[in-house]
């Protein structure tokens, strides 16, 4: 046993195996995300303000989405409970069709996309599987009350950008995402474009007033 262990051949194969795992993981992530960005369906999600800081990966803008709060709550499937993963099915449309006058005096300077909302929640491993034409991805149920699901959380919440620009972007995000009173789709000034492919969502870009964040920061110097 020990003589085998001190030999070289197993070491070579083990190293190759480990190297393969080490290189496979990043390449797989790159391929998966590039593929989704290339051919995934495009949807837009309106954001809400938050403020965090990650010690590992430097600064980033933490995202929160209006569509995570279900208004009105959706019927829960049998066995649904908080903390469980479920598939959220999306359709385009304004999350709140009856906007109230916003207190923010400024108005969006770009044309608003359709913001998508969740219309149905189903079990994660359901049979039969959802049709390919559906836009869906896994979410975590965070609020269930009286047989209705009122809140979910999306599996993505970060938009990374260069550290020296992150602070300003965070401040802008907080300001542009804020709305007083009820949510009004036509007053949304910050949103995210998302590519979804076979249940896999990939963030494409964060927009401020219709411009990608880097472009917005360039065209609006401090």
């Amino acid at each position: 046993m020990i003589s085998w262990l001190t030999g070289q051949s197993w070491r070579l194969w083990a190293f190759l195996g480990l190297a393969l795992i080490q290189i496979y993981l990043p390449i797989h992530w790159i391929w998966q995300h590039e593929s989704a960005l290339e051919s995934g369906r495009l949807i837009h999600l309106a954001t809400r303000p938050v403020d965090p800081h990650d010690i590992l990966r430097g600064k980033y803008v933490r995202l929160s989405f209006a569509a995570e709060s279900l208004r009105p709550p959706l019927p829960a499937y049998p066995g649904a409970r908080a903390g469980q993963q479920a598939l959220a099915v999306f359709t385009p449309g304004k999350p709140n069709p009856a906007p109230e006058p916003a207190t923010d005096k400024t108005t969006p300077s770009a044309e608003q996309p359709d913001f998508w909302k969740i219309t149905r929640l189903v079990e994660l491993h359901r049979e039969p599987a959802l049709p390919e034409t559906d836009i869906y991805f896994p979410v975590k149920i965070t609020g269930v009350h009286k047989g209705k699901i009122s809140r979910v959380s999306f599996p993505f919440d970060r938009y990374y950008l260069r550290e020296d620009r992150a602070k300003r972007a965070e401040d802008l995000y907080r300001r542009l995402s804020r709305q007083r009173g009820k949510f009004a789709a036509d007053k949304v000034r910050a949103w995210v474009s998302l590519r979804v492919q076979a249940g896999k969502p990939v963030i494409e870009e964060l927009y401020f007033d219709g411009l990608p964040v880097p472009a917005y920061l360039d065209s609006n110097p401090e």
Partner: protein
Amino acid sequence: MDRISWLNFEIDSWQKDGIIDEATARRLRERYPAPAPARKKNLLLTVTTILGITLISLGVISLLAHNWENLSRFTRAVISILPLLAAQVYGLRLILTKDETTSRREGVSVALFFSFALAVSLISQTYHIPGSWQSFLRLMILVTLPLGFILKTVTPPVLALALLPFWLGNFPRDPGVHTLQFWLVWLAGIGYLVYFHKSNRQTGFRSLAAVVSLVFFIGLGMTYPFDLPGLWLIFLSGLATVLILAAEDPFHSRWRRSLIPGEVFGYTILIILFQALCYQTLWKEIFESFQTVRVSADQVDTWTTAELYESLLALGFYFGALFLFYRRFRETPPRSPLLYLFFLVLAGYLLARLGVPHGSFMQILYVGGLNLFALYTGYWFIQDGFHHDSPGRYNLGLFFLAFLVGARFVDSNLDFVTRAFAFLLIGGGILGLNIWFQKRRAEGAPPEKGQSE
């Protein structure tokens, strides 16, 4: 002056005095060559290589980070994995050329560790991939630990094991299944320590052993739930006995030196535990907590993960102690009474578990018996110390007895004069015996012969 230098000096003088001729002197010098002064250099080279690679990596990262946003997404992704690829190619070259240079192997291990961490972090940033600190740490630990085995290096297992408590710290309220994962990885660290030792390699062994031990105690503190009443007695007595017997087991004679810290730790645990067990207060708490739990246990039909883990850990150490005790007993029965304590602990635990009421005859008999056994243990250490001419051992016995008796005086409602006399008596006894023994040694009286422990 080391032994070889001394020998060389002597050989010169023997040759000068005509005791040996030149040919003999040369043969002797060849037989006992001066050790190569390479170890310190190797260590220095290893440290500087690791430091150099780390600094270069940080420099490259900073340069890239400065212009990061100007690069396309795909370029960024490719750049993220280039350092990893370079480190892998260099590692492969080391294996293919059978390069055993410690500094290169350690250096490439560190490069692989950091380049993989860099690749994961940068790709996560580029594609805005969500992830948690704990999942990142877990990935790093799992991917880094095997590097030690493969490249015969110490740094990756040390880094992986050092990350373990940080990873577990992410689940403070409910360690649950993560506890099992923690100990499995730690066992892999132990496996590597054994492998390292079997390979007769010295550089880094102490660092690795120190990290393995440290992580063990940190992990124990973080994961042992102390939920089930009295089970910690089984756990501690089993663990301490395992640490002592593992060090004394002839099977591990090559490990003897490495296991001495564990043995000392084991004896310390047993002595403190033994002293604590001699008190009724402790047993009262344990016996009464069993009564409380018996009521609630009827209402709960399933065990929590923590309770299951606690039980498995306690039983694991206890059966480990039984196994080693059996091996030892077959050869020569252990003479130290402390090594029989874990049987008595089990007896007390079973009494409480079976619902024997606190203060009952059986319970008082048990604690009384323990006290008598403790007195005998103290006496045995004193006697054994005299037999082996070992002041350390008989003083241990004296202190053991002194604490056993003295603590009663602190514990009880006695007036100060009585206490003062008791302490003077104990202190005087310890001092007097030591002076007498030293005098006896100075007079050259041969120590009494006894069996060796």
